[in-house]
């Protein structure tokens, strides 16, 4: 058992001054969680439409006719 999960910020002192700066310096590279955001979005996009929304779209068609 190790503290593997914490290696990301290991070298960083707990000083308040380093907090924002460390993050800003990495602005160019994509952090791990950035994919998570996209994944969150895509996971909802991939869900089947709930009935009430499909029904609403179907009603729009009747509206046209």
């Amino acid at each position, binding site marked *: 058992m190790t503290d593997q999960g*914490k290696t*990301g*910020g290991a070298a960083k002192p707990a000083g308040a001054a380093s*907090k*924002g700066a460390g*993050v*800003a310096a*990495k*602005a160019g590279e994509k*952090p*791990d*969680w*950035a*994919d*998570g*955001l*996209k*994944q*969150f*979005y*895509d*996971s*909802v*996009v*991939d*869900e089947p*439409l*709930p009935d*009430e*929304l499909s029904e*609403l*779209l179907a009603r*729009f*068609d009747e*509206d*046209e006719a």
Partner: protein
Amino acid sequence: MTGKKKRELPERTAEDKKAFKRELTEVVPHLRAFARGLCGRPDMADDLVQEALLKAWAAQDRFEPGTSMRAWTFVILRNAYLTDMRRNRFRGDYDEGVAERILTAPAGQEEPIHLSDLHRALLTLPPERREALLLVGAGGFSYEEAADICGCAVGTIKSRVGRARSTIASMVEEGKVPERALEDPSAHRAILEELDEVAAGNGVTEPTR
């Protein structure tokens, strides 16, 4: 002649209407994703989508064919969300349990951080930063498109996305995704007050430090 000239809307052909319906249908899953990110609760998010769809349908003559349906409908959904928020509709109604249950990661994928944590972190951001990050970081809009959707300058969007990213990054780095930020009445009130500002079109200019 009246002082205010109304923009002439071209007559829509049956083809146009069909295309509108098709494009609107295609964009519904994206509206759901945007709404879910904005308001947390899936049931409320879908209510919001329904509301936005009805409004979009009623306003279809104002859609310019060839432009982005996703951007156009996102503006409508965003406005509906801000209006509802101001009417207190979502106030104090956030149900973390529901959000967490629904937001399970797709099977077989390694998660650097649980989607539920990420979503909760997202929900603790001030609304204008949350929507900026959702649009750019999750929805894949360009800064320019996001600025159009939010009705603000490109630089403002960039700064909001940057701030949102660094807030989430430090939560993740420090392993401190707030557990109860939204249950805390004062935090919640602060968020809603900021929302009022955003909804009022004040755009909430970021204080420079």
